């Protein structure tokens, strides 16, 4: 249900404004709303300046926290530092240190990755290190040919030797990946020619590592190897420095971030406060039941200097009233389903309790199998064990358990255990949906009629309560026409005495112009769509029958495959597929029946969420 709200006004002397806002923040109850005053308070330039300082400091702190390694979660947090020049300077200094260390680490990592790319190349030609080179001033080209291109090597060698009259040495090794590492050593004089030839023949050179340039790889190789060996030590030293910095400063950073975030929230709240030279007024919404708590807390802290008063009796009408939902614990998990849509407007109806009753019922009617229900219960139980209390996953697991219970209950009613296996094992169906297809269809449509009727009743009551009497009566007439049509149909089918058909039909015809008079010609279209909505509940029967038939087919596979073992394996697989479909399809269609067919009659989305001024908490 939607919690009843009250609007509270707090007034007091201007010098107490900061303290009162802090007290309001401590209470975490008041959703601030700017007081409706006939005059505007003069703009406060100091506020904007302070806002800038806090934001700048927060950027430094949060960047530093982001750059530093996570510290010991069990450490005692430092005292809140407050906003001073010292705080700003310290935050800036820590950020610079953290930035410097993080950048140095990133550069080292980049260098290591680059050198590792050459490691195989190094290893392939390691045996050549220390050998006398043919040309002391030789330059090197590094080429990696793709796997299977070994035959091109001889051609490459021939072309190069022909181009530079033999002043070239081509060395090659096969890499573990199947690629060919090719080292082309060439005299300084012939190097430009070789470079041009390689470019013209589209042979891609491996870029030389930084610091080596165009010098000979074989000469640089020992230095590069030594560099690669020393990088892990340098990384370790940097990590040690970062850890020290984190250990020393993280508690202070965390405390400063919390303090400044709270301050930022209060600064933002100041825009919704009326502050003149001598007086301030704060207004906001809070649950009606908590008004006394906040009033008492303010009175205890500030005495008679700060006065409070509940403003107006705007319940069920103020469009800007924020909305918060509060349902009994048994219904609360189902708020996950209603919260996927926008919140209902204040003063309208929270559909959560109805969803909590009908959603598992529809799901169970469609799945309706003891075996599948138990499988779902096992899944939901596992999810429940892995989820944190009050988390969304916990709510989903509770919904899963409710749906599983419903599926098992309807499974018992239908006598189904993995489809027709239940009948074979001696389960006696109270309602055999395998054979009673037509009664099942009739039941599905009757459930639809009840559900839609409930939606119309809720709409009529809510509209009446909010003072929209004409629309409420329109919904009432629609409802009457729906019921009369149903009764006329029952009379036509001789479920009721057939002589009642004529009076029911006449009553429908009489109600029709009344409906048009109350709601206009659009009401006719709405009435027809309401009948369509009721027929849409036939999907309960269709999905239920389809699920049952798939299970029956799975069971028949045991005898149809020649071998019982193979048949049983196929049957198991088919049951798993049917279970997966049986989870997804009924969920989607039960949701759709609620969101489209049921909610369409009474749900008014667009409520503003109740966001009281409170302390900042890091998002997990």
């Amino acid at each position, binding site marked *: 249900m939607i919690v009843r709200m009250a609007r509270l006004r707090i007034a007091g002397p201007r010098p107490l404004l900061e303290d009162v806002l802090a007290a309001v923040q401590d209470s975490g109850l008041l959703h601030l709303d700017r007081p409706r005053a006939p005059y505007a308070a003069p703009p406060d330039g100091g506020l904007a300046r302070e806002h800038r300082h806090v934001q700048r400091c927060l950027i430094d702190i949060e960047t530093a926290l982001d750059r530093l390694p996570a510290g010991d979660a069990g450490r005692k947090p430092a005292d809140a530092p407050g906003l001073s020049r010292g705080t700003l300077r310290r935050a800036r200094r820590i950020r610079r240190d953290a930035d410097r260390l993080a950048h140095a680490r990133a550069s080292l990592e980049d260098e290591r990755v680059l050198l590792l790319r050459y490691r195989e190349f190094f290893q392939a030609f390691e045996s050549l290190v220390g050998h006398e080179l043919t040309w002391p001033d030789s330059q090197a080209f590094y080429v990696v040919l793709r796997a299977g291109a070994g035959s091109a090597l001889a051609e490459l060698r021939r072309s190069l030797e022909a181009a530079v009259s033999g002043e070239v040495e081509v060395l090659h090794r096969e890499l573990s990946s199947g690629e060919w590492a090719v080292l082309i050593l060439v005299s300084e004089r012939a190097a430009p020619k070789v470079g041009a030839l390689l470019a013209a023949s589209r042979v891609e050179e491996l870029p030389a590592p930084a610091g080596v340039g165009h010098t000979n790889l074989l000469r640089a190789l020992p230095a590069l190897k030594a560099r690669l060996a020393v990088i892990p030590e340098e990384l370790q030293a940097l990590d040690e420095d970062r850890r020290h910095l984190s250990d020393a400063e993280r508690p202070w950073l965390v405390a400063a971030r919390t303090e400044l975030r709270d301050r930022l929230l209060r600064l933002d709240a100041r825009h919704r406060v009326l502050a003149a030279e001598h007086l301030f007024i704060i207004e906001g919404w809070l649950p009606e039941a908590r008004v006394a708590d906040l009033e008492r807390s303010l009175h205890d802290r500030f005495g008679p200097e700060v006065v409070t008063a509940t403003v107006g009796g705007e319940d069920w009408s103020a469009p800007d009233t924020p909305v918060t939902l509060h349902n009994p614990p048994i219904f609360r998990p189902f708020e996950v389903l209603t919260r*996927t*849509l926008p919140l209902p407007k204040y003063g309208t109806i929270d559909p959560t309790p109805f969803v909590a009753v009908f959603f598992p019922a529809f799901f169970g009617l469609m799945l309706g199998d003891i075996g599948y229900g138990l499988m779902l219960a096992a899944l939901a139980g596992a999810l429940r064990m892995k989820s944190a209390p009050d988390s969304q996953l916990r709510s989903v697991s509770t919904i899963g358990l409710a749906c599983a219970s419903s599926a098992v209950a309807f499974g018992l009613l239908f006598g189904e255990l993995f489809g027709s296996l239940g009948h074979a094992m001696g389960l006696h169906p109270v309602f055999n949906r395998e054979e009673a*297809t*037509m009664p099942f*269809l009739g039941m599905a449509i009757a459930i639809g009629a009840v559900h839609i009727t409930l939606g119309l009743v809720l709409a009529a009551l809510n509209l009446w309560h909010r003072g929209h009497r004409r629309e409420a009566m329109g919904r009432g007439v629609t409802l009457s026409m729906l019921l009369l049509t149903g009764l006329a149909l029952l009379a036509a089918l001789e479920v009721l005495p057939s002589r009642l058909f004529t009076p029911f039909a006449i009553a429908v015809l009489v109600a029709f112009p009344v409906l048009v008079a109350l709601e206009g010609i659009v009401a006719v279209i709405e009435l027809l769509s309401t009948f369509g909505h009721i*027929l*849409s509940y*036939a*999907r309960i*029967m*269709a*999905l239920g*029958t*389809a699920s049952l038939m798939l299970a029956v087919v799975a069971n028949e596979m045991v005898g149809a495959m020649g071998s019982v073992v193979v048949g049983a394996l196929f049957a198991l697989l088919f049951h798993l597929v049917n279970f997966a479909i049986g989870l997804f399809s009924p969920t*989607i*269609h039960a*949701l*759709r029946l609620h*969101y*489209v067919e049921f909610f369409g009659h009474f749900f008014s989305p667009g409520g503003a969420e109740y966001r009281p001024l409170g302390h900042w908490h890091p998002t997990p």
Partner: protein
Amino acid sequence: MEIALLGLAAALAISIPAIATAWAQSRIGPAAAASLAEKPELSTTAIILIAIPETMVILGFVVAVLILLRTGG
């Protein structure tokens, strides 16, 4: 002959709406995926929109069952 025709009618009753549903979903699916890329909070609306055309094939299934029941099974 009559049974064969009724069987054919049942097959058409399910297959034509199935094709129509598939066509509608093939149009809605990419549009929903594109919307989700920009606004992930629309996931519920997207699922509902994709489920809406399934009404056709579900009602087709119901009609097919009704026709088959006329054939006696």
